[in-house]
């Protein structure tokens, strides 16, 4: 139950062979209204059904492993902050859910059956304010509050049961009547697989609607969630365009999540429904930015090293809509320096960004380093020495300090 899952789709497909997908067309699902979404569990929920107990028990070790992984972002206030956020938008289960922040530079978050969520650091990088992050966390809470994991499991169990009984009966009936029904059995198998995906998409749409209701109740602007989707679509387009490809538009029958566009449209319509005209909504931007400040450089660093210039540039430009600063300008330069394509003038672009970055008071030490290197290449020795000295004074124990000192001479 994650916000964008690739793995679970593969896992679902592994259950059966993907046959000619054109046989069945997926019906357009109607929008689920946030007003219809009520939490299905109360505070302190513990499973009573046997199947759910089994599912929860298996999660204990998974949670222990996640809580102890070295990918966990050390608690410098941020862990506490996201835990508080889930407390705000967690509905009746606010006090029961746990949230773990992992250093994985991808846009994703997921909820596990027993009520703990995992948020990837790549998501923190992309959120422009607290309202957007609250939207994602509320979506994940929605999965738990609407009991999606056990409902999905039961759906899968019921459908696989029916398929097995159906195949057996078809075999027996066919043998009795002297005809071969194998083709129909294969068709039924495909139908079963497709309906599993459809159920999954329905649950995602439910979680979107539930999440929207939760953030609206917590006093965040309901539009924050569709903004997040608009950003994601923009980023995927930019990344694909850079690679001269088209974004996977998600019209696939085997898609576990509704197509990004239809999700965004539904969220926008629902948000308009939930927005109270004239009311002031809190975005919590300053609070958000000051909380993630200690790790923002790390988040940007991880992103540019993914070697996905289209996406990185898009992310940086999106964040810069709230104002450029030294950190963003430096990493804009890093995107092009790391691509390093001479024919397209990457180095020149990078050097320009470094030069602009150092004009901001918050320029990171590395910006001075690379600005110095750029000046040196241009033959502006004395300016280069000044910039490099600035780098050394900011970071006297840098790994390359001895090398830079020698450069200054």
């Amino acid at each position: 139950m994650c916000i964008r899952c690739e793995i679970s789709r593969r896992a679902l497909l592994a259950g059966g062979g993907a046959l000619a997908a054109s046989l069945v067309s997926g019906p357009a699902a109607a929008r689920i209204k946030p007003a219809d979404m009520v939490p299905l569990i109360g505070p302190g929920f513990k499973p009573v059904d046997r199947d759910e107990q089994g599912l929860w028990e298996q999660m204990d070790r998974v949670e222990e492993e996640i809580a102890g992984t070295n990918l966990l972002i050390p608690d410098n206030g941020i862990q506490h902050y996201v835990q508080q956020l889930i407390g705000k938008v967690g509905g009746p289960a606010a006090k029961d859910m746990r949230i773990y922040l992992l250093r994985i530079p991808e846009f994703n978050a997921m909820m596990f059956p027993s009520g703990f969520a995992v948020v990837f650091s790549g998501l923190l990088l992309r959120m422009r304010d607290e309202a957007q992050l609250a939207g994602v966390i509320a979506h994940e809470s929605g999965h738990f509050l609407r009991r999606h994991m056990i409902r999905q499991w039961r759906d899968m169990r019921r459908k696989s049961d029916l398929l097995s009984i159906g195949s057996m009966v078809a075999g027996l009936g066919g043998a009795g009547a002297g005809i071969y029904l194998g083709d129909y059995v294969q068709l039924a198998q495909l139908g079963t697989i497709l309906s599993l995906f459809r159920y999954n998409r329905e649950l995602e749409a439910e979680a979107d609607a539930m999440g929207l209701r939760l953030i609206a109740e917590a006093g965040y602007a309901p539009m924050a969630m569709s903004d997040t989707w608009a950003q994601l679509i923009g980023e995927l387009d930019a990344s694909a365009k850079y690679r001269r490809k088209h974004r996977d538009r998600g019209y696939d029958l085997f898609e576990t999540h509704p197509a990004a566009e239809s999700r965004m449209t539904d969220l926008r319509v629902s948000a308009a429904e939930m927005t109270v005209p004239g009311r002031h909504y809190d975005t919590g931007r300053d609070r958000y930015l000051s909380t993630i400040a200690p790790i923002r450089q790390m988040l940007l660093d991880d992103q540019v090293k993914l070697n996905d210039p289209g996406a990185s540039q898009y992310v940086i430009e999106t964040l810069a809509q709230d104002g450029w600063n030294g950190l963003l300008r430096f990493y804009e330069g890093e995107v092009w320096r790391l691509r390093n394509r001479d024919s397209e003038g990457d180095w020149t672009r990078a050097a320009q960004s470094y030069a602009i970055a150092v004009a901001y008071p918050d320029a990171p030490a590395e910006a001075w380093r690379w600005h110095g290197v750029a000046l040196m290449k241009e033959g502006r020795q004395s300016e280069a020495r000044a910039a490099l000295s600035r780098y050394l004074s900011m970071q006297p124990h840098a790994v390359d300090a001895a090398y830079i000192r020698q450069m200054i001479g």
Partner: protein
Amino acid sequence: MRKAVITIAAFGVALAGCVQTRQYADLQFAPPQGDYSLLVLRPDVTVGSVTTGGMTEPRADWTEAARANLIEALKAQQAARGGKVHIAEHRGDIPSVDAETVAQLERLNYVVDESIVLHKYLGVYLPTKRRKGLEYTLGEDAVSFGRKTGFDYMLFLHAEDSFASTGRVALQVLGIAGCFIGFCAPNVGGGGQLAYASLVDLRTGEVVWFNVLTTGTQIAGVNLGDIRTPAGAAQMVERLLGRMKPGHDVRRAQKAQS
């Protein structure tokens, strides 16, 4: 003709059930005997029910019962060999090391076990490991762990067991009944055991012994073991750990002596 088909089917059904183990040992491995201390780290046990459609649904109550039974059986079996067993259910249960150190060693062992399974059991044999028995080690970390905790050996144990649900058994009955009208599906299957154990010598850090046990039939409803019961758990421990063979060099030396 039809009778012949049924006979063949019945024969196939009879053949399908089996209990299989395949163990590997370090060339110099001698099974622990006498006065030794053994640490069993977080036995990993899952018991589930096989649904009509063939999915395995974990059952918390069965798993709890099986874990308790396996631990008891393990203690009894090791005591018979003279060993003292300490079973750590949680990473924090081990004196004089912190949970993080235990976690690191456990993760290391997990990946080493994965390569043992890949290169010894799944057919991706390595030419450099031929005729060398089991040649894997957890290295210095395991040795220093042994020094700090005072244990001689460490055992990792993974056990799965599953049982066909009523619906699955009904499907099986239909499948066999179908043989009489010409639609024969006798091997619906569902349920069975998979277990593995690896033994680490904490004085050298080496993985000295590894065993995999599979138990099952291709007929849903017929199981060859049941770790939810004390007797069934003892049976699994005996099948998995009871017939621990010495390494190749040790066996040759023994043969030369006799």
